[in-house]
């Protein structure tokens, strides 16, 4: 089993001490990426809940690579991430949402060798009692715990908040702060920390809800961003409260409130100034390590660099996605920004240019207008529509984004209104052709445009536009595209009731070289009783085209454009259609109030069997007569199945599912058979991608869910971090290592991975499908359940 597609931007990443590794929280694991190549090096696995906080233990020698992680599962773990292995587990019994360790940051005292003070962490936890106790809605708590000698979480509660807030610590480790609606709370970390040491707190007020805060590395300056896009900078906070006891009485008698311009409500700060550039709420704020600059970003996807003294701005525009985190590295020339589209960009610092991106699979933007992601059967790619009018090709086996093509040439600003949508993307079976449909939404009812594009793979194995057709179906949107598996032929369907068959002229040999394809031309136009057409499929040999015209399936000869037959009638319009492998069975799916999954026999031109279930996705094998469906469970069944969806594997000839898997987050999910990797068995694999674009790939026929080793085809080549010595001057010598390919070890160790989140177990453990299927099938299923493989 391969899983992947995790969210890289759930919390801020952290650089290792030598800045060669970037640690990213990916769900319940922590992935370690190489900053030089942007590829995954290792991962820390062990937490059973999402990891929420990461603290790398700083070390001047940069050799040690220890880190602390905290997770919602209530544990804090200590790792050596170079190995990687877990060193220590502390069980807090509270879900941890944020953790900072101030004592790691403050400079080590000289009596380092003798008595190492205990390391204390400040955690933002969710109080589990609060949910039961309706009287106290404040379930977030800021508490302390001793990481060196852990007994229990300190009973001292620094602050209770409505929700668990994220903690911010100053880079010097002296202050830590949280935002609490319109207030900021800042604590001074006691010099000698203990479980009971009370830290002093000040509160700063603002008139708007604060979204983010940052503390200056050297001075007592705090910056906060609010929902309206303002950035407030309080200077000299805590002059009275924090400094007084330190024996240092300020030379100026802190006389009166009029000496504090801009500061509200007699807060303990010297002055407060306001900067306003962001048009919407500020999401990230970070001081540079020398404290001279402030980075800010927000929804508009522009990284703004403020010179703290003068307020001068510098920009890194066109990132194209809302910014979430900015992280400095120990290497002053590197830093990273995390974007909401699941990308982590590594910036080369003084010039602020993106040198590398760690691209996760882009988030689902499906909002009715977009179709599902398309899968490439042969190469194991998934093509997903992105927000910036492009298509991202994501390798499911390698778990990384390969490249993106821009369908529509226009700049995307996250704040802009959506005017263009890439509504359809379809790949041919061999992955050499792609069809996309983009829809320009009409403004004030005029100016809508539908554009169909055919793409071909070019020499770099990337898609480039071959043919562009404006308004292929006059006045209606395109509902589906289907490719002929045997020849360069495609069909596009419209809601307006017609379909067009497009053919690509064969390559013309001229002067001994291959010319470009002459392009796609309309070969034939067909319609059936002006019924809206929503789905089409070619048979495996390409001789039959099945087009769903509203409630019936029409069968055509695609070459001669002759209507061959009309099959049956369903209750609701057919929305998905497919031939099951090379068999003469056609599978149709209907949605709506009376959902239906039907199998039609082509030989008899009649319905073979059908279920009344809500199908989210369906996928067919190429060679065999299997197909798999992703069915959405009715809400009442969610508890029985530990998930909201179920994958059923059918043989067309048999209405009894061969296997079933319970899955979560099935809404918006997808399903595809993929060609197995050559080194594996020749069986095809099944890939399931859920609504959050997390995916798993597994063997559908194996009795147990075998775990596939992660296949990393070309990552090892890129692994070396930087070139040095001879190679840095003259480039790399060609390596003569014929055995290199063998090193990509195939270890099929079936370690018990926590895959309960997606699968509830093997198919034998599943409850029967009685609750799922209709009354009609109930007896049938009960009888044959033991025989299900």
């Amino acid at each position: 089993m391969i899983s992947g597609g995790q969210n890289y931007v759930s919390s801020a990443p952290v650089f290792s001490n030598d800045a060669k590794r970037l640690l990213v929280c990916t769900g319940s694991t922590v992935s370690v990426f190489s900053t030089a190549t942007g590829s995954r090096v290792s991962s820390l696995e062990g937490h059973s809940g999402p990891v929420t906080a990461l603290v790398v233990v700083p070390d001047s020698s940069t050799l040690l690579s220890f880190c602390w992680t905290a997770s919602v599962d209530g544990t804090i773990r200590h790792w050596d991430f170079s190995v990687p292995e877990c060193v220590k587990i502390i069980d807090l019994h509270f879900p941890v949402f944020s953790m900072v360790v101030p004592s790691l940051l403050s400079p080590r005292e000289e009596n380092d060798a003798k008595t190492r003070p205990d390391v204390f962490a400040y955690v933002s936890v969710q109080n589990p009692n609060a949910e039961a106790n309706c009287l106290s809605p404040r379930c977030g708590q800021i508490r302390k715990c001793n990481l060196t000698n852990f007994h229990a979480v300190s009973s001292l509660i620094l602050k209770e908040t409505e929700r668990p807030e994220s903690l911010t610590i100053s880079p010097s480790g002296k202050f830590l702060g949280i935002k609490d609606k319109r207030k900021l709370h800042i604590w001074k970390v006691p010099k000698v920390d203990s479980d009971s040491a009370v830290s002093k707190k000040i509160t700063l007020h603002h008139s708007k809800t604060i979204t983010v805060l940052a503390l200056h590395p050297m001075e007592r300056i705090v910056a906060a961003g609010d929902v309206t896009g303002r950035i407030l900078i309080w200077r000299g906070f805590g002059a009275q409260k924090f400094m007084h006891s330190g024996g240092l009485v300020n030379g100026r008698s802190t006389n009166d409130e009029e000496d504090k311009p801009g500061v509200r409500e007699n807060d303990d700060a010297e002055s407060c100034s306001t900067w306003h550039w962001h048009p919407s709420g500020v999401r990230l704020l970070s001081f540079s390590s020398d404290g001279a600059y402030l980075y800010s970003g927000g929804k508009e996807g522009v990284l703004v660099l403020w010179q703290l003294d003068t307020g001068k701005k510098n920009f890194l525009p066109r990132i194209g996605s809302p910014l979430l985190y900015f992280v400095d590295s120990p290497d002053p020339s590197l830093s990273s920004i995390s974007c909401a589209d699941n990308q982590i960009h590594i910036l080369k610092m003084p010039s602020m240019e993106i040198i590398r991106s760690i691209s996760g699979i882009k988030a689902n933007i499906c909002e009715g207008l977009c179709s599902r992601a398309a899968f490439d059967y042969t190469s194991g790619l998934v093509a997903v529509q992105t927000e910036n009018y492009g298509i991202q090709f994501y390798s499911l086996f390698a778990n990384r984004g390969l490249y993106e093509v821009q369908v529509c040439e226009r700049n995307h600003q996250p704040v802009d209104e959506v005017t263009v949508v890439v509504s359809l993307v379809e790949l041919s079976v061999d992955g050499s052709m792609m069809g996309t449909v983009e829809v320009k939404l009409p403004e004030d009812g005029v100016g809508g445009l539908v554009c169909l594009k055919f793409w071909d793979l070019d020499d770099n194995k990337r898609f480039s536009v071959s043919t562009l057709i404006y308004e292929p179906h006059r006045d209606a949107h395109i509902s589906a595209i289907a490719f002929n598996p045997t020849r360069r032929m495609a069909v596009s369907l419209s809601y307006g009731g017609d379909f067009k068959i497009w053919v690509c002229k064969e390559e013309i040999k001229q002067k001994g070289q291959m010319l470009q394809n002459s392009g796609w031309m309309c070969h034939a136009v067909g319609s059936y009783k002006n019924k809206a057409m929503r789905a089409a499929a070619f048979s495996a040999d390409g001789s039959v085209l099945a087009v769903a015209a509203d409630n019936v399936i029409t069968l055509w000869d695609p070459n001669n454009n002759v209507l061959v037959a009309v099959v049956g009638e369903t209750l609701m319009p057919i929305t998905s259609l497919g031939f099951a492998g090379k068999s003469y069975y056609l599978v149709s799916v209907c949605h709506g109030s009376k959902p239906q999954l039907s199998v039609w026999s082509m030989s008899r031109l009649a319905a073979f069997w059908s279920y009344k279930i809500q199908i989210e996705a369906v996928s067919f094998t190429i060679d065999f007569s299997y197909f798999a469906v992703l069915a959405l469970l009715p809400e009442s069944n969610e508890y029985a199945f530990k998930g909201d969806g179920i994958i059923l594997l059918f043989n067309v000839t048999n209405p009894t599912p061969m296997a079933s898997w319970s899955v979560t987050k099935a809404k918006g999910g997808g399903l595809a058979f993929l060609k197995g990797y050559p080194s594996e068995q020749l069986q095809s694999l099944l890939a399931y991608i859920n609504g959050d674009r997390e995916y798993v790939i597994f063997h559908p026929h194996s009795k147990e869910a075998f775990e596939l080793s992660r296949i990393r085809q070309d990552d090892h080549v890129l692994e070396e971090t930087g070139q040095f010595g001879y190679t840095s001057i003259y480039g790399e010598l060609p390596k003569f290592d014929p055995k290199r390919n063998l090193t990509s070890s195939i270890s099929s160790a079936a370690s018990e991975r926590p895959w309960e989140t997606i699968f509830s177990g093997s198919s034998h453990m599943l409850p029967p499908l009685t609750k799922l299927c209709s009354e009609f099938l109930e007896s049938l299923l009960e009888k044959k359940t033991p025989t299900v493989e």
Partner: protein
Amino acid sequence: MDKTKTISVDRRPSECVSSHSIDKITSIDWRPSPVVALATSFDGLRVAAARHDGSLEIWLVSPGSIGWHCQLTIHGNPNGKVTSLIWCPGGPHGSRLFSSHLDGSVTKWDLFHLNQETVLDSVGVSIWQMAVTFPKGDKINDEKKGDQMGNGFHDFDEHESSESDEDFDSPGPHEGSVGENPRVAIGLDNGHVGIYDISDTDEFIYEKSLPWVNGRVLSVTWSTDANYIYSGSSDGLIRCWNAALGNEIYRITAGLGGLGSGHELCIWSLLSLRSGTLVSADSSGSVQFWDSQHGTLLQTHSLHKGHVNALAAAPSHDRVFSAGSDGQVILYKLSSSQSASSDDNKSSLTKRWNYLHYVRAHTHDIRALTVAVPISHEADIKAENRFKRARRGKKSADFSYHKWAHLGVPMLISAGDDTKLFAYPVKEFTKFYPHDICPAPQRTPIQLVLNSVFNQSKMLLVQSSQWIDVHLLQLKNVCTPGDFAKTKILRRVKTKASRKIICSTISNSGALFAYSDQEKPRLYELERGKDGKIPWDVRRRMLPQRLPFAHSMIFTHDSSCMIVAGHDRMIYVVDVERSELVHTFTPCRQLDVDSSPTEPPITRLFTSSDGQWLAAVNCFGDIYVFNLETRRNQWFISRLDGASVTAGGFSPRNNNVLIVTTSSNQMYVFDVEAKRLGEWSSQTSALPRRYQEFPGEVIGLSFPPSTSSSVVVYSSRAMCLIDFGLPVESDESDMLNIQDSRAKNLQNFNLKKRTKHNRRNFEVVPLENPVLFLAYTSKNSLFMIDKPWLQVVKSLEATPVHRHIFGT
């Protein structure tokens, strides 16, 4: 003024105002002139503002009040463009005001005689800026700080001399005689800086001239100990000069990043602080802070999006304000931050100038900034002010002004091309919106004649700076809300281009009108044309030859005599028909003493309708009452609580009653014949607070033609009807009523629905647009001339600041 449109039915304006119909005119030509320079007197009480048309205004806050009042206006030479203003200690009145001009002359403004005298003739080179040394008194206060500074300079000078300058001596205590008189440094267009002494007789005594430098000297300033002069020029250099020896100590290239002395970089303003910091403002939008000892850059702020024209420092010298052509005023504050990196035990105090806040109140370029401490003492009005007010959702700017304007609170005044002046609290700059202290700058004087000899038609006399317009007013009988009355211009009388009209008047018959420019008064008679071609004809009437030009003129009620308040501080009574001088009054404090005029000139005149009384008011608020029949001085009323008289008039019902309003928003009723305070005034101890907090100062009053006992007073923002027959209530809910009436629109006045509310005295009705004139036309109808400020702005010469709106 912001108006909410929420009008609740039961809170309709009470009948006394709602029963009036109002006719409006908005078409009057009103072109205020941009402010080019501001200066605060040394006591911080008075602010002088020079306008582009050559006039000068003195703004102050009357004792006991907090509203600003334009104490006096001097119409100067319209061609002498003022470039800078300085106040200088000394002289007979304690302080003197000088201005430098673009033509290279320096003039003195006589605030007592209301005239302008040239004290330094032009040498043909423009003067860009003048700077005067700090006064002695201030210097003593700063001695401690200055000492430290001076030592620093000595050290530095020695270093310098060892290097290059052989004939350079450390300045030492400079020549004793020089320090006595205030000294002025004048930055000239040709690259010189001239240093002059101002003698007690207001002469500019040439002392020396600093060596010629390339480019124009655009800004000069003195160091606080007066030993050094800093000059900024148009080639982007700031030079430090030894004031005693006249040699250059160092020069600073102000261009950002040391990018050469680009000839296009202009140092518009320099400010020397007590801490030894020099602040420069230049045309690239940068405000830079320099260590004046070494000439090294401390900090740069480039927040302005245009030229930075002006700088000002708070009295404590820990805040600096800059203003520029982008209409922003930006506050920088000196904050000493303790570096946390050095541990707590060793505190390295770093002082930085931090940007804190900006305010954009002006729509046009800001030309000048100054800081004043205007409130000399607070009357009990402040105590009343402390009353709790009901919380309202929307507070107007006025009320926030009332919150921060207290005794001893320094105010920053800014003014510029949009002709307005704004006051900001220096200390609470970030908290409050600026106060518009001049809602209707350079109001056009207007007079209305109700029943003229021409078919009883109504006529208007509108005085512009260069001409006089006579309009025929056509009021409709039935006025629908929002409809405007019409005027027809009858005649326009122009003066010579080099002169400005100071005052004008029209007789009650409408047939005679007069104006006075800076040369002499002129009298005209309006008559219907003989032939049909020119329907109206103007004939000039002769006046006695030796009549001086006037600060104020008025006709008696029967139009037989014209009274001229000359600039020679005498009042002349001229018989119009015979064009001969009938009598000359000399205003004086002691009655029945005919002596040479010693009192300040008269700026306002009022006559009673029976022709018996003449009240003359000078700009300081003294009132002289004359009996025109017996031609004797009747009474002298010393200035009322130190405040100036803003409006006044004799009641048409009782000719012995003189009603005046003062700039401290008080109203007084005098019985002139009995020479005492009137019955109403003596009975009324305190006016309601809603009147004392009247938005803007009262600029005029009008009596209804009937024998009603009421009067309407108005400011440029609001009007108020006062009935002397009604008791003066001073209830606590007053504030609510102002707020409520604020919510009402002007259109509602015409609503004929009478509410059942009691008739209220002192009801304040806010008005939408700046009002120029308001008067009764009949018993229940008012006539108002206003103009939306946006229209005024459109007519300004300068274009407003273009602001790029995000996303366009």
